[in-house]
């Protein structure tokens, strides 16, 4: 690759931005783990510098015409060359900035949240690892590099979800997250290897170039590899059918959830899709599968969110559904819609999680009814921020979500998937409904009256100061409010992504925003009717249908099914079968061999030992044989 002129400078900045968190991770883990404040300072410093670098790069390359690539050979083995490098183009730059910003903000927020935890230093170490892995993933120049950091992202989230490993549920959730995403990654790796065998390279510019890929791969192979790689995305982004790990991942510290849900772990999946958009769009089947999976996930998760009582769970389900939404947008053929929603979602989802954390922090419970009863509405900034975030999530103008959601809906309408469009509309309706259900439950608690004052602070982490938390909240809220207005510049910027970017803007359906707003208004009204107004019993319509309530509450029994399959097929089936085979058949055969040797020895021992007369008999018999041999033979 010929380095372009402005590269060295940008390269140094990018490399520094990438290496600083790694350095922070190393230093914290090796040296300063027990010194909490220092560790936090190192980590936040590294994240802050990365953010600065990201902003610098964004400004520097705002007008970029061609993607910048720098690659170095990392490892050579025979015919195989594994490069490592940096690819800067609008997609990676914007994601880079988002990741850097969110991880910086979350780390600052954690100052207050995690204060006093014995693993404080370790926590910041893992956060740095997380940031490093995700940042590097975004600017990876080859698919293999993406896979490597994809796995590292999984590792970091494993460590962070199971951060409070004293709790069984936390370690179990970490394990579940890792194993389920790993299941998807198996497909990803397989697809990647197939692709490598066909193309001989995994460089992203090559992969996303329709001309080369189309020339070297048969359509069937493209579809196969695309579907396999999509398997990895399904696992990472918690799409159907691998979606059940994400709600469980709430066991980790809440800032981790914020990071996980907005910009890193789950976003990696959608990011990969947008990264390889040019490749995926070569296979209509893969796009259709993507659209279908996205639709199913979105609807499933929305229904689950309607009956959840745990505030974090609600947002977790909404993440799944929003990721499904992004995939729908991407599957419908619009890179910009998906990527834009990814960016806006990163902002408001982080905001929502951090707000939820403030509630949990103050009320000491995850149950939203309980939060309402304990006077959650008195936490003014959290309430306002939640409303902003929920508004964005529901697509209310003028918040950021409104623009991105409307883009996706428009594309769905254009792309000729009426079913998907209807499903998306239903999903949007449900999203608004459950978001405002949550808000109304917190704002208008029932049978409370004598709630304990919020000043009592009986949450378990109350040592930290408040200012980092509120500052971060308002920052994110500000971003959520204004980001939507940058749609056009962002679009222009991303349009320069070069190959694979379909710049077609959807035909403007002027009725669509109005309709969407109306839909949202209806949903809000219904939520108000059921939860908000004075006489509301705060029992949703779903909860009045036991069958649905049960189905949704049990996550469509997916978890049970997986558990059952795992227990019966893996543990009790194959594993036990193999173990029995090992003990009985293989070991049994060999032990049998040993025993039969011993038995043979016994026989020979009996012949040679034991009673005199046996020996005599043998001797005489042998003599007779000898006589016969000599007599007839000789």
């Amino acid at each position, binding site marked *: 690759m010929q380095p372009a002129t402005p590269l060295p400078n940008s390269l140094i900045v990018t490399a520094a931005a990438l290496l600083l968190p790694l350095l922070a991770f190393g230093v914290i883990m090796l040296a300063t783990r027990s010194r909490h404040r220092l560790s936090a300072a190192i980590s936040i410093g590294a994240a802050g510098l990365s953010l600065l670098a990201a902003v610098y790069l964004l400004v520097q390359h705002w007008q970029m015409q061609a993607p910048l690539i720098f690659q170095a050979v990392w490892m050579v083995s025979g015919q195989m060359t594994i490069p490592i490098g940096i690819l800067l183009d609008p997609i990676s730059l914007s994601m880079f900035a988002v990741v850097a910003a969110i991880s910086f903000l979350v780390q600052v927020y954690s100052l207050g949240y995690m204060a006093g935890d014995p693993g404080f230093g370790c926590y910041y170490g893992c956060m740095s690892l997380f940031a490093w892995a995700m940042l590097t993933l975004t600017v990876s120049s080859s698919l293999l590099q993406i896979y490597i950091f994809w796995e590292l992202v999984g590792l970091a989230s494993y460590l962070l979800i199971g951060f409070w490993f004293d709790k069984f549920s936390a370690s179990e959730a970490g394990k579940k997250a890792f194993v389920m995403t790993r299941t998807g990654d198996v497909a990803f790796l397989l697809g990647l290897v197939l692709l490598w065998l066909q193309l001989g390279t995994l460089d992203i510019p090559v992969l996303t170039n329709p001309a080369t890929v189309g020339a070297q791969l048969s359509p069937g192979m493209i579809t196969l590899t695309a579907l396999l790689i999509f398997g990895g995305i399904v696992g990472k982004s918690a799409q159907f059918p691998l979606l059940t790990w994400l709600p469980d991942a709430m066991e980790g510290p809440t800032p981790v959830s914020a990071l996980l849900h907005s910009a890193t772990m789950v976003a990696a999946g959608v990011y990969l899709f947008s990264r390889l958009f040019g490749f995926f769009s070569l296979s209509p089947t893969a796009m259709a599968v993507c659209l279908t999976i996205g639709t199913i996930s979105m609807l499933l998760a929305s229904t689950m969110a309607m009956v959840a009582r745990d505030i974090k769970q609600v947002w977790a389900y909404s993440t799944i559904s929003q990721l499904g939404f992004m995939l729908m947008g991407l599957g419908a053929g619009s890179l910009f819609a998906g990527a834009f929603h990814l960016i806006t979602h990163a902002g408001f989802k982080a905001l929502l999680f951090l707000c939820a954390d403030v509630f949990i922090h103050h009320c000491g419970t995850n149950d939203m009814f309980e939060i309402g009863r304990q006077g959650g509405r008195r936490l003014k900034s959290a309430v306002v921020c939640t409303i902003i975030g929920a508004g964005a999530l529901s697509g209310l103008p003028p918040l950021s979500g409104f623009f991105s959601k409307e883009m996706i809906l428009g594309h769905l309408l254009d792309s000729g998937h009426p079913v998907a469009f209807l499903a998306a509309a239903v999903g949007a309706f449900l999203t608004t409904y459950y978001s405002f259900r949550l808000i109304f439950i917190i704002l208008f608690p029932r049978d409370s009256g004598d709630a304990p004052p919020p000043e009592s602070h009986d949450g378990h982490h109350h040592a930290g100061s408040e200012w980092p938390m509120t500052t971060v909240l308002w920052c994110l809220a500000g971003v959520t409010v204004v980001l939507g207005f940058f749609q056009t510049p962002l679009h222009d910027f991303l349009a320069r992504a070069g190959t694979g970017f379909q710049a077609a803007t959807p035909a403007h359906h002027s009725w669509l925003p109005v309709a969407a707003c109306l839909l949202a208004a209806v949903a809000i009204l219904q939520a108000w009717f059921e939860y908000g107004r004075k006489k509301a019993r705060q029992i949703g319509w779903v909860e009045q249908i036991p069958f649905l309530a049960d189905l949704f509450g049990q996550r469509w029994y997916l978890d049970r099914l997986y558990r059952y399959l795992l227990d019966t097929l893996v543990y009790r089936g194959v594993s036990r079968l193999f173990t029995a085979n090992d003990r009985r058949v293989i070991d049994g055969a060999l032990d049998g061999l040993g025993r039969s040797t011993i038995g043979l020895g016994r026989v020979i021992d009996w012949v040679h030992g034991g009673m005199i*007369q046996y020996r005599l008999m043998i001797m005489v018999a042998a003599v*007779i044989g000898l*006589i016969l041999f000599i*007599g007839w033979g000789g």
Partner: protein
Amino acid sequence: MSILTLLFYAIALLIVVATAMAVTRRNMVHAVLYLVLSFFGTAMLFYLLGAPFLAALEIIIYAGAIMVLFLFLIMMIRLKTLPGMFFPVGQLLPAILISAGFLVVSSVMVGRNPAGWAPMPAAQASPLAFGVYLFQTHWLAVEIASMLLLVALVGAYVLGRRVRGPSADAREEAP
């Protein structure tokens, strides 16, 4: 068929019957006595076959010394319970088979020698000639045999001696 031939078959019958009786007696004294009878028959056979000296030795050593030794031992050990006569079928059967097999095989082998079917002329080796022959030709073997007998004498003494050890005493005292 001469008288000698008839005598041979009579003696042979005696030997075989006496031996068979000896082999199958439960009472060991009876068995020894039948065997003595068998040895007397053998001695007669030796005489018939022209070995008068050996016939005498047979009576003196076999029927006299050795069988008496057996009788001494049988009386000495005074078995409280006589052991079972034969082994269970499992072992008896192979024993019979092997013995019969040997008989068959040896008979067949013997029968295959055509030179053996011619009747032999009677002859006599006088004790004097035999003694001269023995001590001229096999004097060394005779000396070695005498040494062997001496060793047997000492060995029998050593083996038969009561062991004077604590455990042996204990066993004797508390039967």
